[in-house]
């Protein structure tokens, strides 16, 4: 899988693309946690993420905990329907900041 990034309005936007499963989770975890240490405000745009398993959710949970501990801000946006369903089953929609649109997510990490 890929992890593209860009800067917008004082926030880092990360766009993981492809499949986030037990084959790819470890490399994604390393790359994501490095970016989160360097940037206090991060939006994860998941529009390119086609698939996530519990191995990928584990990484997102660890990332959200790290951001909370360091008083940063993290918002997720643009989940594909299948990904949204997996988040819902996991109870992640209530513990993570999940938005429909990227602008909304940017507003949440700036606030």
């Amino acid at each position, binding site marked *: 899988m890929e992890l593209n990034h860009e800067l917008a309005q004082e926030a880092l936007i990360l766009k993981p693309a492809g499949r986030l*499963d037990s084959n790819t989770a470890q490399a994604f975890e390393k790359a994501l946690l490095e970016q989160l240490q360097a940037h206090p405000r991060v939006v994860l745009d998941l529009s390119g993420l086609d698939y996530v398993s519990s191995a990928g959710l584990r990484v997102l949970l660890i990332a959200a905990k790290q951001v909370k501990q360091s008083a940063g801000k993290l918002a997720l946006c643009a989940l594909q329907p299948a990904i949204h369903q997996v988040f819902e089953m996991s109870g992640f929609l209530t*513990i993570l900041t999940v938005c429909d649109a990227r602008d909304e997510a940017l507003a949440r990490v700036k606030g």
Partner: protein
Amino acid sequence: MSHLQLELKPDSTALVQLASAVERFAEEAGLPLPLAMQLNLVLDELVTNTIDYGFAGREDGYIRIELHGEAGRLRVDLQDNGVPFDPTAVPPPDLESDLEQRRVGGLGLHFVRELMERVEYCHEAGENRLRLERALA
């Protein structure tokens, strides 16, 4: 009637082979895309568990999967020769705590239970045997 049999070795190629096999089966059985993805997720979680914990470096490990669609029902049989492990005996994960308290892990088998209607386990002839069933729609 649709039918597919697959044998996986417990290595890093297993999930890729699994995903393409599920795709073939889904096409043949005319599964709607969301159901195909759910089936892939369920099998991914079970296969990943078996690979991570089942074989402890053994070389002779195998995971056999049989998918069967008939009369509106989907049946999945999994057999592996890893250490005995009953996924139906694992307690449900914590889905209620807030972010700081939420435990990392345990979601995989939760997906299996949520997405399948029946999950039956037995250990027989040196194999873990798991049968899963649900409606094909």
